[in-house]
């Protein structure tokens, strides 16, 4: 372009440009005020003095391919102009992020490596909006995620974690409370019905997948339903307890939990109860947790490595003196 040539010949009179090189090797020049809107480019120019000529073009990070870079530049060009009202900016942003999810991911990545925080926020929010409320199947389809979990893992994702001593302790405590409650129930003459339930999902997943009937049908399990007495709060149809039962029967070898009334009763009563009961639970829980957390962390790392192969190296946490965390990870960002 003749304008570009003029810029080289009479730098004082024309506006200044910055030279940038994308990952594929191609070099382009961009108006200074637009390019400097990206903190990463700004840093390169100021700290290293590059970008002023074709030979000293700034190399952009690998995650910024030419197509994404031109999108980023459009964004910068709009937003760096002063005097844009909030409404104008919002309208532009809403239109700007309308693109397919593949490009949206690439754009997020590019914005992140250029440290352009407003664009990272915009694209992150757009991705979150896409993910929110969808079933795992839908999400996998939209983003082309590999479907590499076994059926078992999908239905009982807590399998690994059922070995978690904290969960075991929780279950034991719930069981104890349920027993107590059942005794109380007996004294009050509450009706108990039994239903057969087709569904077998663990508690977390059933909560999550309650809108998705497909995931559900596998084994027959029992489910109990309690007609309300005066201290039971909610009526029950999907029994949390039965799910937990299923998990424990099929998952690890724990069969400590007998068939007992629905879960919410034992939760509501113990938690609403007095200080005494809670004091009884907490110190014991705390002690066991402290003792076994270390053990669990080690097992977590080894499980992780085994199940994921080389994809992800174990992540170690260490806590600095002031309580903040430092994560040592072998992964490159």
């Amino acid at each position, binding site marked *: 372009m003749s304008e570009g040539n003029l810029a080289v010949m009479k730098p004082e009179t024309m506006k200044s440009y910055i030279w940038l090189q994308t990952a594929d090797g191609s070099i382009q020049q961009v108006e200074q005020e637009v390019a400097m809107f990206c903190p990463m480019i700004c840093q390169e120019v100021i700290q290293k003095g590059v970008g002023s000529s074709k030979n000293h073009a700034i190399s952009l990070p690998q995650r910024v391919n030419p197509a994404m870079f031109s999108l980023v530049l459009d964004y910068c060009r709009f937003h760096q102009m002063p005097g844009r009202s909030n409404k104008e900016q919002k309208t532009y942003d809403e239109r700007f992020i309308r693109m397919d999810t593949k490009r949206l991911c690439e754009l997020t990545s590019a914005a992140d490596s250029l440290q352009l925080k407003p664009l990272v926020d915009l694209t992150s929010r757009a991705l979150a909006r896409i993910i*929110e409320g969808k079933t795992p199947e839908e999400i996998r389809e939209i983003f082309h995620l590999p479907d590499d979990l076994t059926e078992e893992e999908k239905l009982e994702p807590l399998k690994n974690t059922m070995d978690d001593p904290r969960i075991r302790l929780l279950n034991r405590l719930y069981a104890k409370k349920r027993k107590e409650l059942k005794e109380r129930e007996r004294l009050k003459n509450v009706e108990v019905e039994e239903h057969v339930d087709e569904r077998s999902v663990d508690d977390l997943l059933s909560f999550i997948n309650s809108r998705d009937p497909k995931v559900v049908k596998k084994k027959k399990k029992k489910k109990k339903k309690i007609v309300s007495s005066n201290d039971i709060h909610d009526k029950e149809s999907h029994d949390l307890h039965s799910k937990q039962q299923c998990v424990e029967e099929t998952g690890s070898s724990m069969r400590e939990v007998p068939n007992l009334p629905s879960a919410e009763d034992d*939760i509501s009563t113990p938690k609403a109860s007095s200080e005494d009961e809670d004091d009884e639970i907490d110190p014991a829980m705390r002690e066991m947790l402290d003792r076994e957390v270390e053990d669990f962390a080690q097992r977590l790392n080894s499980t992780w490595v085994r199940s994921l192969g080389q994809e992800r190296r174990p992540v170690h946490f260490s806590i600095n003196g002031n309580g903040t965390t430092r994560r040592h990870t072998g992964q490159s960002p």
Partner: protein
Amino acid sequence: MDRLSQLPEALLLRIMSLLPAKDVVATMVLSKQWQLLWMLVPKLVYDDSYQDIEYGRFSRFVDRSLTLHEAPVLDTLHLKLGKTSCGSGDIRVWIKAVDKRCLRELIVEFDSNNSSVVLPVSLYTCCRMLVTLKLNNAVLVDVTSSFSFPSLKNLSLVSMKYPGDELIKTFLSSCPVLEDLVVKRCLDDNVTIFNVRVSSLKFLVLHNKGDPDSGFVIDTPSLECLDIFDNSGEFCVIENDMTKIVKADVCFDNANAQQLLGSISSVKRLYLCVPFSKDAYPVGSVFHCLVSLTLCTCETEWLNLLMCMLRDSPKLRALKLIQDHSFRSESRPCWNEPSAVPECLLTSLETLEWVKYEGKEEEKELAAFILRNGNCLKRVTISSKSTDLKEKYEILKELSLLSRRSPTCQIAFN
């Protein structure tokens, strides 16, 4: 091609921080790479109003996900409760579960139907690294042992019930670096005098829609931004002038509130809706820094208040008149031509904006006065309250005939 999972982990965690907890945990079944990622998400928002979830299932879900969650630092825990019967026992357990996670922000809110959940004592003793605490519609209890929130900067107490006046004093004095306080009171909250004595406080929002026999005592010498709304209180006492104040919104029903004006005389931008009485006005105060004044014209004496304010604000540049509430009394204000033209009209007032102008006698007089004397006026914008075109035309005609002292003054009519 899976581009999503290739994003750097920090970015994925940030995206997941924007999701409600149930969607966060659901990612564990997406693929192998995602199995454990959810445990590192720094922000967990639990909402029990999802699709009529029943109490047992919800509370179980929160129990387990909080227990399994791994990240040593949990930035935010947000509990939106009220639709199920989650109560104080649940909150107690959940706070204990995140005790070792260096929680930075804790938000516990109950929807308005369920308003008597008592927050556990562990709220005061756990989570000592809290920077932000927001509580909505619950009950605080007394605590005998001492406690402190050494990092707490933002505190929000909305529609809370307290055990008494003492707890508030203890609570606020246990927050040495508190900068931002929001208190919105409700009826029957057991507080007679709400004491706000925080030397580090910069932003204060105080809304009192509650007891008529109660009031505030404010001692916040570092305050920069104040928002007071009180339509029922008995009194508001300010101890120590707020010399750093920049912006204040004062909406009072109580004539004694004008004492407050004296303590915020360094303010730059002011919104006022207070009843006026000559005795209560802080005579002698000069608003040296006041640049922008917005006055609500719902009170009978607003004209007198305005003239006093104009007289005492030598640097005023922008004046806005707006009727935010329906008119309070039967009698209309009456225009009294002041003996001297206020200095700001002659030297600094540049814009006048009048919303819901009715064209009444006293309003016309005021408009005429300002236009006649406003030496530096650049723009006058008047929006009429009436929708009748004929009426509007009449008003416009009258306004355009008024003489203007400033040659550059433009009138915009709406």
